[in-house]
């Protein structure tokens, strides 16, 4: 409770409320201004002040805010709004395994990959490439001579 009261100090709300004041009033931190702040704050019923009041008195406000506070009285349980199903938090979503292949799977994948290309590699060097190098050499020989 103590930390919430801390946020209710008029000083904390001062900069916001000060926007509505006349410049001719007493200085920005003057006493009269402080009174005006209090007056100006009253209409702001939808502000955080309701939460504090609700905690002290009725529980309706607590329910309207999605069950943020605890019920205080004995009859408050009936007035509690329907909360989201608690199973929402209890459900275990299995994590998708990513990048966690076992070593055996990795090595087998590698072997399969190599086996897959064995046929190409086993073909050796096609004749066209030997001829290509030979032609290059011949051309270079003619050029140099």
């Amino acid at each position, binding site marked *: 409770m103590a930390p919430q009261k801390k946020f209710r100090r008029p000083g904390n709300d001062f900069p916001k409320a000060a926007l509505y004041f006349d410049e001719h009033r007493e200085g920005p931190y003057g006493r009269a201004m402080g009174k005006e702040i209090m007056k100006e704050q009253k209409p702001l019923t939808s502000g955080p002040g309701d939460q504090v009041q609700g905690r002290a008195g009725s529980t309706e406000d607590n329910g309207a805010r999605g069950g943020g506070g605890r019920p205080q009285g004995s009859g408050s349980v009936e007035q509690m709004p329907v909360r989201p199903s608690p199973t929402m938090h209890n459900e275990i979503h299995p994590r998708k395994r*990513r*990048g966690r*292949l*076992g070593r*055996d*799977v*990795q090595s*087998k*994948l*590698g072997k*399969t*990959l*190599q*086996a*897959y*290309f064995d*046929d*190409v*590699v*086993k*073909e*050796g*060097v*096609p004749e*066209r*490439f*030997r001829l*290509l*190098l030979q032609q*290059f*050499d011949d051309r*270079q*020989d003619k050029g*140099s001579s």
Partner: protein
Amino acid sequence: MPLEPSVREAMLSAVPSLRAFAISLSGNVDRADDLVQETLLRAMANIDSFQPGTNMSAWLFTILRNLFRSEYRKRRREVEDADGSYADTLTSHPEQHGRIEFEEFRKALAQLPPDQREALILVGASGFSYEEAAGICDCAVGTIKSRVNRARTRLSELLAIDGADDFGPDQSTRAVLSAGGRR
């Protein structure tokens, strides 16, 4: 000036791996052979830029990869191995691959993004280290590791591999083997 015999031999010895790499990239044998030929021509024309003592194979792979990249941009819309010519050139070895059928593996490999596929083939099939593969692909070593990892994971997902047993004999064969072991 003709090629030095050692350089010439190094080039020729790299050709089979280059072809396999080119086929895996292009998915087409004819296009792959053209790529290899273009690679060799470029290599011979720029042989002065090759530093003796360095890895000839990696140098050739780099040229081929860059050639493919520039060609890939032009032909991006073409379907890889649309006629299945690549599949026809290779023979199936069902006894080697176990449950994974040859055709499934080929299709799964073709579904990988090009950067992942090339990383996987360079490291997993061509025998390059991560550092060498990074040099060929002109990227960081960590990037190559990440691509290889993602490629493996994706392959295992595509092939529905959960464990090493999936590579072994199929269920009926295993049943026969286990029955034979009991006798």
